[in-house]
């Protein structure tokens, strides 16, 4: 469940509530007021009937006391009052129906909106956010935190409003009957509020602690379940159990306290209400017996007809304060949840100042480029200049990094003075230990991260000027960690280019050497993949990822350990397809296996963010440097 830092309940910012309400109003500027109005109205109406009930009973009392036993006469006095009662009830039912139905509509609409806002915002966040935030934490915004909002909007908010209205209405009705007795009630209510605050606060504190321990237990269980086989091999079961029992015990303690507080709040408030009722009744009796003068809005003297309805009001009044107090928990939790949701929404999106775009182009024999809407297989960079003119540059795949410095944080520079020149059609390879900066270079080319110093030019254009989406469209990437999406194999390949035909997807798969195993799957290209292609081997997933990049047909490709999970024999088969795939493209290759990169035009050996050797295979072997040592197996890569 909730893994993120919920913090101290006292630190909860109540402005968050204002923000949620503002968004709710903005989403439903008409429906929400209507709903709220219906809630208020039905609440108000709900408190009036008891007046008429009492009026009817008063008539009855009057008749009985007078010894009149004639129903036909009494009926004339009673029926109109009952009719009003019926009218009020009908109104109330209509309004209740309207607001409960509308509330269901609004709640789900609002949640869907919030989900989409979070998701849309998330899509625009820079890669840095995903590299530095735990994925479990991001996910809990969509599950746990959204759930707390649902509770707030669909239950706590209407119930609070309803209780508020009833409390206020009843308050005035009570004043209508008797000011003295109302004061007595207010004293009791103060006690209730005090108790609610104490117990409710304690409960909220432990609920938040419970969420934390639950997160801790979840983390432990996850680690152990992942390593269950290692546990078995080392007969480590008893230790795993002992570790779990301890965390489980902590979770129990917090959960027990949270619920103990929450559970006892109800009976306590309710019985304070009961005591208050008795006090009121006794006081009323006293007033009656002593003929104490009444002070009230109605100006009525103390009679039994005042005291009985007043006592009923007392019940309603305290009952609603109880409802009120029951909501404290969910409100505190919802505010904590909303705060985290806003934390995600308020993340600064990826900035894109690029104005150079990628367009389909027709290239005349004389080299002039004209823009076109249809796919020609040729592309050009459309470059608007400050003076209002437009120039077109043919997309060739010439990528140059000049004296680039970069660090993920300001304190630590990971790339120092890196220069790489990749001409169209060249294969450039990076070799080096983990952390040497190979992947970092590719992160910079597609602008997942921005460089600190130096220049990167693509076909002579500074990549900062190119619109990010167009830049990335011109680069195909295949990563070591393959991510496939739920859907068919075909859909996954088509992800590379959404308008690709089935035929094009198939030939891309053939090129990648994936066609063979795909056709052997139960439903061929229509086989459904789930859970990141859990039913495929890591090698097969990589082949699909290669096909996905191939169908995009980009002029530049980045292969980051793209074939690392394919065994040497299969790789030999894939290699042919890969070679064909790389034909005519600029390709950046990162690989551990030297056999994958030996035939590159340029090989860069990286060490701690610096290029220490560069050249082709023969040259580097002849130099007898680090590459040579790697090749002969004398040196270790990690």
């Amino acid at each position, binding site marked *: 469940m909730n893994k993120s830092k919920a913090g101290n309940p006292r630190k909860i910012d109540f402005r968050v509530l204002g923000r949620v309400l503002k968004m709710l109003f903005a989403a439903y500027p008409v429906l929400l007021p209507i709903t709220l109005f219906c809630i208020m109205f039905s609440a108000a109406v709900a408190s009036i009937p008891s007046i008429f009930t009492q009026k009817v009973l008063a008539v009855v009392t009057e008749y009985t006391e007078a010894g009149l036993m004639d129903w036909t006469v009494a009926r004339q006095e009673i029926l109109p009052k009952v009719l009003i009662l019926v009218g009020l009830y009908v109104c109330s039912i209509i309004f209740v129906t309207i607001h409960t139905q509308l509330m269901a509509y609004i709640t789900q609409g609002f949640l869907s909106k919030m989900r989409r806002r979070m998701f849309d915002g998330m899509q625009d966040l820079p*890669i840095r956010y995903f590299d530095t935030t735990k994925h479990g934490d991001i996910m809990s915004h969509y599950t746990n935190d959204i759930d707390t909002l649902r509770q707030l909007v669909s239950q706590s908010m209407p119930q609070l409003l309803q209780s508020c209205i009833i409390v206020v209405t009843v308050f005035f009705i009570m004043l209508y009957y008797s000011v003295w007795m109302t004061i007595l009630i207010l004293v009791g209510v103060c006690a209730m509020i005090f108790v609610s605050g104490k117990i409710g606060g304690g409960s909220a504190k432990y609920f938040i602690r419970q969420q934390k321990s639950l997160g801790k237990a979840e983390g432990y269980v996850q680690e152990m379940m992942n390593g269950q086989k290692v546990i078995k091999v080392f007969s480590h079961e008893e230790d795993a159990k002992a570790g779990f029992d301890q965390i489980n015990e902590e979770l129990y303690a917090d959960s027990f306290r949270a619920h103990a507080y929450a559970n006892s709040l109800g009976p306590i408030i309710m019985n304070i209400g009961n005591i208050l009722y008795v006090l009121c009744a*006794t006081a009323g009796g006293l007033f009656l017996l002593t003929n104490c003068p009444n002070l009230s809005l109605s100006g009525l003297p103390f009679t039994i007809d005042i005291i009985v309805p007043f006592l009923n009001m007392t019940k309603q009044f305290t009952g609603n304060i109880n409802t009120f107090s029951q909501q404290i928990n969910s409100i505190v939790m919802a505010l904590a949840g909303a705060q985290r949701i806003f934390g995600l929404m308020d993340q600064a999106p990826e900035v894109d100042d690029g104005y150079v775009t990628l367009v389909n182009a027709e290239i005349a024999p004389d080299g002039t480029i004209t823009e076109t809407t249809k796919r020609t297989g040729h592309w050009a960079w459309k470059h608007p200049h400050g003076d209002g003119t437009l120039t077109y540059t043919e997309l060739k795949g010439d990528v140059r990094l000049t004296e680039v410095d970069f660090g993920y944080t300001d304190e630590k520079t990971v790339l120092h003075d890196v220069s790489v020149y990749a001409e169209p059609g060249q294969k450039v390879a990076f070799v080096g230990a983990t952390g040497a900066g190979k992947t970092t270079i590719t992160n910079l080319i597609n602008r997942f991260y921005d460089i600190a110093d130096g220049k990167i030019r693509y076909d002579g254009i500074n990549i900062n000027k190119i619109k990010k989406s167009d830049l990335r469209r011109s680069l195909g990437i295949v990563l070591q960690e393959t991510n496939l999406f739920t859907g068919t194999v075909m859909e996954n390949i088509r992800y590379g280019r959404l308008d690709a035909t089935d035929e094009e997807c198939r030939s891309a798969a053939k090129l990648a050497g994936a066609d063979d195993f795909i056709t052997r799957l139960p439903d061929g290209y229509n086989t459904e993949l789930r859970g990141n292609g859990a039913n495929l081997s890591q090698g097969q997933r990589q082949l699909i990822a290669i096909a996905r990049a191939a169908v995009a047909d980009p002029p530049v490709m980045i292969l980051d350990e793209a074939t690392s999970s394919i065994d040497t024999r299969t790789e030999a088969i894939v290699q042919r397809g890969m070679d064909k795939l790389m034909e005519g493209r600029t390709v950046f290759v990162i690989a551990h296996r030297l056999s994958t990169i030996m035939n590159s035009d340029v090989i860069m050996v990286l060490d701690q963010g610096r290029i220490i050797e560069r050249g082709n295979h023969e040259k580097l072997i002849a130099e007898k440097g680090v590459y040579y040592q790697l090749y002969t197996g004398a040196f270790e890569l990690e």
Partner: protein
Amino acid sequence: MLKRLAGCIQEYRTPTILTLLFIVAEAIIEAFIPFITANLVNTIKAGAEIQMVVKIGLLLIVMAILSLSCGGIAGFTCAKASAGFAKNLRRAVFHKVQSYSFENIDKFSSASLVTRMTTDVSNVQMAYMMIIRTAVRAPLMLIFSIIMAYIMGGALATSFVVIIPFLAAGLFMVSRKAMPAFRRVFKKYDRLNESIEENVRGMRVVKGFSREEYEKEKFGTASENIRWDFTKAERIVALNSPLMQICVNFNMIFVLLVGSRLIITSGGALIDVGEISAMLTYGMQILIQLMMLSMIYVMLTMSSESIRRIVEVLDETPALSSPADPITEVKDGSIDFEGVSFKYSAKAEKNALAGIDLHIRSVMTVGILGGTGSSKSTLVQRIPRLYDVTEGSVKVGGVDVRKYDLDTLRGAVAMVLQKNLLFSGTIKENLRWGNPNATDEEIAEACRLAQADGFVRSFPDGYDTMIEQGGTNVSGGQKQRLCIARALLKKPKILILDDSTSAVDTKTDAQIRAGFAEYIPETTKIIIAQRVASVEHADLIIVMDNGTISAMGDHAHLMAESEIYREVYTQQKNGGAENE
């Protein structure tokens, strides 16, 4: 299914029973309060002595305090019972999984086990709390209120009894219609969250292909789709409230009207105003209790899926366990496979292993080669009895592995798994998995043998360096060497390395093997590898193909006899040293 769960209540049976008792006490007191209140009102009205009023008032206050105490204590014991029950459930599931064999583990994904121990157990906890608080109270209050209504209002109370079946049917129908709708949409909701997770994980792919807008649109459609399903289900549930109101309100009017008439015509002899008031209160009570009962029904159906998922784990029988009269000593490190066949499941068409006959003498070093899916791992996993064979037998030290105590066998056979893991904790703590009593000197020695001592010492905190979850702060090769050291600490009679040096460079790999030969010559060593160089000098090399032994012998023999071996050998030697 429920019985299975109830077994986990254990020591929390007492708080559970106490809860029930206190709830009953509270309910009884609560039921009498309106009765005495009516009395009080009547006393005041009758203009009785003030002492009388105070007396009844005091009685009421005492009752309220009693009710408060009972309610408070019940809330406390109920929290204890439900939190404790949840604790026991989680423990039962976790402990059960510890008894699983590999075969059982393969059945459940680790993510689903995590959900079962967290979300599902929490659902059951909430349901349990709800049920012990209301399951007894609601029917009790219901019956009591009906009786009281009869005492107060006589025949008039029949109107409540008449309306109950209608309301109950109505509430039941709402729940019945809403539940399947909810269940459907929850499934969709899970899938939506799965797709968010995919997106978060695959953000580099999304951004790499500039698919942000496409993803937004796709998500928007899915989210809206679920929104409408949810709205539909919630709107059905929202009917509960007006339904209740219709019944309550019109019943009130009926009682009021008929009651008034009765009072007037009888001159207050049959029923009086106080009694009518009390009746109205009881009427309200009856309806609230019905609402509670319908909520229990909803809670139970909502949590039934969670219950099913928990019981599924608890009911799984461990595929293998120690025999009744186990042998607790492994004589030596010899291994014999006799006509061994194996299928992963009874339904599988193909044997993962077929007709394996193999005899390894103690002290031998054995290399195993073969392509992906040739069942190399499947073969060696029989030795520490991680799975049982389907046919034939595997013997260690001349005794069938099924006759050993499992801990004894696995203590003597150390295996470094292909998918190996370190756990969060210090390096030293991780290594002590091999032997909890290992001294610092023994740990350092094992690390030297596994060529790990050097880099461990280069860390600022040395052997006390914290390993993060999943071992993400050490490189693949370092992790593998630590895993080897961990296995060595067991001082095993048989050591199995399942592709455990794939991320270690050839030179270090060779040093590790040389260390084995020098320092643990007594131990039988089985090495699965991709690199020919890793197995080239073994006493016996086994070439696996498609679940069978394709060829067996030393290097020279295989170069002459085995085509596969020759092919792999020449490919690797010509392709240069491949570094992985």
